[in-house]
């Protein structure tokens, strides 16, 4: 029972980070209908920037996290201005955007390797990295608490934004029907940039979170999270924000539970098997259709 509780908590911490990534990823699809396959590399940049700010500049973790989020948010906005925006305006094949995002991903990974090297980087030994709390027979690391609290804060902030503010309502209108949104005076251009910013900064936050959980970041961590993120997105329903969060947590739990029984790469195979099953049986995901209404 204790083992189960321990695993559950570990899974929740991991799932919290996955949820943050997944939400950023699915938000972009749900609101703007963009499948941004560079999201994994943005996550990776967030992780590296966050860690280096702590390691080299000696910033306290919260500051490093915020700065990393700002950096990745800005990077995401840059990709919209330079690449996705012009592509959208030109029209044409949808998968040109996929090609561009894949090329961007590769570009960012290569740049990261050039700037930060190809090795795995680790956080310096700090108090919050080492302390552990024990409740009964369950060990809870401070860093896990940090990750969970961060995730909850970000999710709450996003929920407040989307549900409780006028900006949020405008964003939801855009998601529902972009033409209608324009007609009723929603500043679509500016809000598009905002959504890219949010999506990028959530990816960056997740990068820092997973960096904390594993005490490792490297230029290669993006590919794996992208694949996991896609799994989560498909299971949760492309564009369905709460579905993505829930599926992210589920993924974290599943991964941790199955460690004991399966080698890591068979776990991956199961993950993709699930993707297949969902795509074939219920492509809109387990948590219902996020059907984009179009005029």
């Amino acid at each position, binding site marked *: 029972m204790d083992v189960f509780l321990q695993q559950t908590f570990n899974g929740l911490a991991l799932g919290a980070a996955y949820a943050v990534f997944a939400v950023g990823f699915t938000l972009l699809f749900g609101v703007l209908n963009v*499948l941004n396959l560079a999201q994994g590399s943005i996550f990776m940049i967030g992780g590296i920037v966050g860690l280096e700010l702590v390691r080299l500049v000696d910033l306290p973790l919260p500051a490093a996290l915020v700065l990393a989020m700002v950096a990745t948010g800005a990077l995401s906005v840059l990709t919209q201005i330079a*690449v996705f925006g*012009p*592509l959208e305006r*030109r029209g*044409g*094949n*949808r*998968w*040109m955007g*996929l*090609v*561009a995002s*894949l*090329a*961007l991903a*590769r*570009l960012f*990974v*290569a*740049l990261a*390797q*050039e700037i930060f090297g190809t090795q795995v980087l680790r956080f310096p030994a700090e108090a919050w990295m080492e302390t552990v709390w024990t409740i009964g027979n369950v060990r809870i690391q401070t860093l896990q608490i940090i990750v969970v609290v961060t995730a909850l804060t970000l999710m709450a902030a996003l929920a407040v934004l989307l549900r409780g503010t006028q900006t949020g309502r405008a964003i939801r209108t855009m998601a529902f029907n972009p033409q209608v949104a324009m007609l009723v005076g929603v500043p679509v251009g500016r809000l598009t940039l905002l959504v890219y910013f949010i999506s990028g900064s959530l990816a960056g936050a997740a990068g820092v979170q997973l960096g904390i959980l594993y005490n490792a970041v490297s230029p290669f961590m993006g*590919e794996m999270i992208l*694949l996991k993120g*896609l799994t989560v997105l*498909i299971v949760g329903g*492309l564009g369905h924000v709460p579905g993505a969060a829930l599926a992210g947590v589920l993924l974290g739990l599943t991964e941790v539970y199955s460690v004991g029984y399966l*080698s890591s*790469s*068979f776990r*991956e*195979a199961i993950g*993709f*098997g699930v*993707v*297949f099953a969902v*795509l*074939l049986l219920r*492509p809109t995901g387990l948590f219902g259709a996020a059907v984009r209404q179009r005029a």
Partner: protein
Amino acid sequence: MMSFLASYENVIALVLIHSVLGIGAYVMLSVNRFSLATGGLMALGAYVSVLVTINAGLPFPVALAAGTLVAAVAALILGFPVLRLEGDYFALATLAFTEVVRVIALNWESVTGGALGIVSIPIETRMWHLVLTLAVLVGGVLYIRSTFIGRILEACRQDEMPAQAIGIDVARVRLVAFVVSGAICGLAGALSAHYSYFIGPSDFGLIRSIDAIAYAVLGGLGNVIGPVIGAIVYTVLPETLRFSAQARDILVSLTVILVVLFLPKGLLSLGPALYRGLFGGSRGRASVEPEAAE
């Protein structure tokens, strides 16, 4: 001249193999489907062909045929459920397929050698095999596209609804294209495996699929020559500049982004543009402008 060719033999072989892969990707893009299954199908062709040569001891042509056939059949089986899916979902399903194949290759050690892969593969592939394959492919595709089949493909790509309305079974066309694409990728895998004496799971991941699409997009999708041009540029350009591996990646990805943004019809479209620039417009169909339009 011959010694020049000999010293660059590797690069030329790579270009040829990449061209074949690019054509595999092009076949699917020309029916308007974004497939990331290239890596997985190539892996099937590679591993099966190697098992035929090494384990079964059968001759090279049999291995090639086996690799091609298995990949084609895999595409057929995969195609039925997956081609029903709409664009994004189809891309993701093919991505999942490639990853599943890679993971199986990584773990099924008894058959695939696991992460260490398979070594001591007999080097059977000669340059003329590759050249012949590419020539036959290019010739074949050019011929087929000039027939009524070519028009069917264009109709499916340009607008699916009227294509259906004139009696074209678009789903079946896509399935056939997928099987053909699978055969091409499987053959490329088999040829490639017998060119280098080692294969491993990391040779066939998502990167393969992405690169194949990049060759096609870079060169231009208007013509089967496009992927060949794209493969040449993509493979040779980094080689000519002896930068670090990262710098090459940066260069190549920037090129793809720039082409996608500014040359959506690929490098091939530079040709007519240059021609018009040099010799001035006003010849043939290209310049029928709407005096007739309202």
